[in-house]
């Protein structure tokens, strides 16, 4: 019976068409440009945020708002460096694919889990000082005390909700990845 099933499996018709070597080489080159575009997408947030806050440094006279803007720009460079350092930006999907599956799969899952678990240290956390300084600077520009308090409370609540939401979502995905790692055993 096992042999019957194996025969059934091995004799199935597939759409398999041999791929000429030239085409393989061409696609390998395209894969590089795909990774190149993926890298550009990952840095796109930086390309938006840096000019905007660069403009703020020039636009706003308040020193705290200028300092906050500069800190946010510095944080964006730090995040970009972290993305690069973590290897997510310069590796092709097939790299390191010749190790045993368990080792390969475990490393992939652990890399993703670690990045998500430590998102405060390399993504969210570096943004906080700049945002806080910028918002405090902006609130000081508001002339009325009541408006100032409302402004601070509103923006702080919004930041906590956004950052907290991002953190909670990432922590949830990291726990799912950990369960998959646990299933691999030993």
């Amino acid at each position, binding site marked *: 019976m096992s042999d019957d099933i194996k025969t059934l499996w091995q004799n199935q018709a597939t759409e398999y068409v041999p791929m000429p070597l030239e085409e393989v080489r061409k696609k390998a080159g395209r894969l590089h440009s795909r990774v190149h575009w993926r890298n550009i997408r990952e840095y796109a947030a930086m390309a938006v945020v840096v000019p905007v806050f660069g403009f703020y440094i020039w636009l706003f006279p308040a020193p705290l708002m200028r300092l906050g803007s500069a800190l946010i720009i510095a944080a964006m460079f730090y995040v970009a460096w972290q993305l690069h350092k973590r290897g997510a930006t310069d590796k092709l999907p097939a790299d390191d694919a010749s190790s045993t*599956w368990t080792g390969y799969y475990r490393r992939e899952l652990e890399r993703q889990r670690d990045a998500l678990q430590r998102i405060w240290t390399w993504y969210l956390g570096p943004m906080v000082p700049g945002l806080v300084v910028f918002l405090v600077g902006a609130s000081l520009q508001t002339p009325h005390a009541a408006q100032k308090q409302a402004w601070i409370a509103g923006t702080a609540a919004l930041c906590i909700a956004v950052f907290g939401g991002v953190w909670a979502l990432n922590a949830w995905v990291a726990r799912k990845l950990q369960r998959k790692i646990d299933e691999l055993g030993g």
Partner: protein
Amino acid sequence: MTGANQDESYRLAVSQHGAALGRLVRAYEADPELRRDLLQDIHVGLWRSFAGFNGQCSMRTWVYRVAHNIASSHVLRRKRAAKQVSLDTLEELPDGGNLEESTGEKQRLAALMTMVRTLKPPDRQVILLYLEDLDAAAISDIVGLKPGAVATKIHRIKAVLARRFREGVAP
């Protein structure tokens, strides 16, 4: 490895294992368009990988490792993948009728394919390599599980296949 050797190893690998790669991608991806892309990714990955191949394992082991790893990464990236189960769960699920007696070869193959696609990556790899007629030692070398664990999985696979296709378990 030199460029010429890399090309030659790739050609040899494809001539010997190309058809198996075609079956492998069918078990990993149901959508024909995505399946074609996956197969191309595997070919490109295989060619690239031969730059680092120095006979540290057999060519068959190398080819299956690269192919399964790329296919597993593909499954991992699919956000809306169907729910996957382990062999343990599969053993407990109802088998859906006597496929051996009531259906033709095409339907039996379709039923087998559906069953394979529901399995989680490690179990799916073991069953695919088993269906390609590799022994427990070779499967262990590719997947990275201990030979005893592979043997246990193969035993379960045989039981599930026997129950679903209504015949005795092969020794």
